[in-house]
């Protein structure tokens, strides 16, 4: 299996961070950033990563099955993640998630037919101070109101990129 030169370089950097007999430490970052390029955690990808970090494919599957941010089928180009853990729950996260479900006509880990948008109800993303929080791909949206969520989702549905939806600015982390 081959990857882009950029991803190969990134994998090299991950692997170089750890001692030669602890290459498996690079497993999670390799899976998550590899997933962005491959699209999802495919069997072929699992075999390749297993070979590179020196574990069995089963051990890779144990890890990839555990972490919900690792997907075994491709998600949409824009993966909308709504947190419903405690801080977000108390501040309306669950309502946001249900609203997103209705607006997009999607459920948990479902993808729109055109492959552009997918939805996921996620666990804590570490943004409790700015709850309720929403994440699209790697971008965070803090203190999200139902109106802001509507604007984000309407924009995505209308074919806009998140950057073009200027009414709801993403947070610079």
């Amino acid at each position, binding site marked *: 299996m081959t990857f882009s030169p950029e991803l190969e370089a990134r994998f090299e950097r991950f692997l170089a961070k750890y001692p030669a007999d602890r290459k498996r430490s690079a497993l999670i970052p390799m899976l998550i950033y590899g997933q962005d390029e491959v699209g999802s955690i495919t*069997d072929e990808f699992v075999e390749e990563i297993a070979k590179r970090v020196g574990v069995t*494919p*089963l*051990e890779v*599957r144990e890890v990839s*099955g555990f972490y*919900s941010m690792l997907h075994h089928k491709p998600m949409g180009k824009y993966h909308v993640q709504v947190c419903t853990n405690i801080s977000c729950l108390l501040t309306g996260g669950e309502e946001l998630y249900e609203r997103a479900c209705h607006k997009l006509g999607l459920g948990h880990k479902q993808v729109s037919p055109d492959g552009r948008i997918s939805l996921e109800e996620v666990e804590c993303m570490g943004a409790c101070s700015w709850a309720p929080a929403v994440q699209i791909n790697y971008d965070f949206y803090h203190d999200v109101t139902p109106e802001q969520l509507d604007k984000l989702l309407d924009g995505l549905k209308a074919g806009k990129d998140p950057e073009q939806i200027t009414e709801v600015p993403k947070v610079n982390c």
Partner: protein
Amino acid sequence: MADLVKFTIDGIELEAPAGTLVIEAAKKNGIEIPSFCYYEGYSLQAACRMCLVEVERMPKMQVACTLPVGPGMVVRTNTPQIQAARKGTLEFLLGNHPLDCPVCDKGGECELQDMVFRYGAGESRFTETKIHVDEQQWSPVVFYDAPRCILCFRCVRACDEGMGVGALGVINRGAVSLIAPNMQDHLNCDECGQCIDICPVGALTSGTYRYQTRPWEMEHVGTICTHCSDGCKTTLGVRHEQIMRGNNRDRSGINGEFLCVKGRYAFDFYDHAERLQTPMVRNVAGKLEPASWSKALEVVAKKFGEIKARGGRFGIVGSNHTTNEENFYLQKFARECLGTNNIDHRRTGDVTTLVDALSGTSGTLATTADLYEKKAFLIIGADLSIEHPFLAFQIRANYRHHQAHVYTVTADEVREEKTAVRAIRKPRFQEFDALPELRDALAAEPNLVILFGDSVKGEDVRKLVAFGESLGIPVSYCALVDYSNSRGAIDMGLTPELLPGYHASGTPGLNVGEMLAATDLDAFWVIGENPLENAKLSTKRPFVVVQDMFLTETAQKADVVLPSASAYEKNGTVTNGCGEVQKLKRAVSMLGTKPDLEIIGLIAKEMGFAPRMGPWLPDTVFNEIRKAVKGYDIPLPAITLGAQQTMPVNGRVGVQTNPDLVASAHENLFTSGTLGRYSKILNSVIEKRANQ
């Protein structure tokens, strides 16, 4: 020894070495702390939350399976809070566990049943629909029923740590976690079935035993596995004269609960459709036809009598699977009654040279317990995990628990290399060249066990013992042999050159190869061996008598075929590769067959040698062995429940044996000579692996 720590459990003042876990300290003192995931000998998991205890001055309940005892620690295991916690844990475990106990294989011997009975609540607050996952078959022997799984991960650890295979893992998270096999939907593993045995519930079930019987309907007979020379005890579950399963859950015997695929499943050759159940005699038309025992024995005795009377030539081949009593009785009959020394068996390891070379040195024979207790191991020319799974298991456990140093010198990659401090590759018969470079490392070890395969024989064995002697540390040895009683066959004198106890026979005799090559044999008598599998007799039409379970290539050439009982159908003793004598116990009877001991006795009786041979009772014959074979003078109680090692010689062996006769078949995990060919389960595993 670590310092003793004083502490209290349930008001009883106790002491234990520092580092002891609370759960172990309690168990040693008769206090039960229930647990599922904790399993002695494997890594700690702390997954099931069943072993919660209260510890004074600790704010929350603690898991006893990961908590070491501390000085002054006050532990309580049976307070209302603990009782409520156990009830809660069991309520959670039963939340998704199907209550199909009436049909579950584990019903009646299920740890979850026992725990719920003892500690559980009568009611559940869960009303949610249970998550259903369809049952999966992972191999001919392993089935997985996910909803029954309580996620204790014992199977994962037994496979990874115990077997060094790592074929099982856990995928997903929380309530939807599943045990997964290494090849997505099937297993590529040793098929040992340890995962099934260690499962506290009925999540992992056995392809041969599932839905066949209830545990309480079986009788449990502890006997010795009849396949390889490791000599594992297997406890056969018997119902209506049928063997339903083999396991060793009571951890008795030298092998504890270890069994490989052969010990656990490959007993099934005994009721193979082709099993011989009636004697056969070649008729005038040249065809084998069924005959009565009395007729067949009469034919054999008459012919043997004639041949003996005219001073004819006998050739007798004994077996690596028959008992010590049978082997002793056979050679006695051959030598004292038939007056021949043409008696041999298939030699699979050079034990004779080893016991001779050890004479006058500080070296000893290794026991199977040594493999778990000694500090360093040198494995020469053997793929131990494949050919001797139990010996490999012992060394692996030793490495895990005591960081034993393993050195390997092998031709190909072996599993032991993964944990070896030095692994050297040398072609077969050149292994010796690697020893000089290991000398310094080995001499620095506190003690050493050397295990060697059939590529080290004759002079090389002497050189090896001299090398061991020169290290200046205590060294013990194991000459690896193939089958369940290979060692016993040599000890009992199934060779032309040696009598029982390694005394020189002093009379020339033919070995197997010479019998096949001889052109003037009058009778060829084979007991439980298959010398004509890939060879021919040079003598034209000798009188051939074969005692076997199946119509092997050799039996097809016989004039008289006598159906013999398998190891699971008779009593007696066998000696494993480490020289440990253990008792076989009859589990079932097969209609129409007789134990080889009885057959030999009946032939002798028919020929009028009964007074000379004495009764064909295993205990009586063993008493003779005790007198004749040094080291076998062991008290019967010692081997009634356990094993006792024998050192069969004291001093030099009387005669040099020809090392060229030594050749191992290098049976792997799924082959076992003729027996393996008639085992449905071994064949199905081989077939499955070939199809992948």
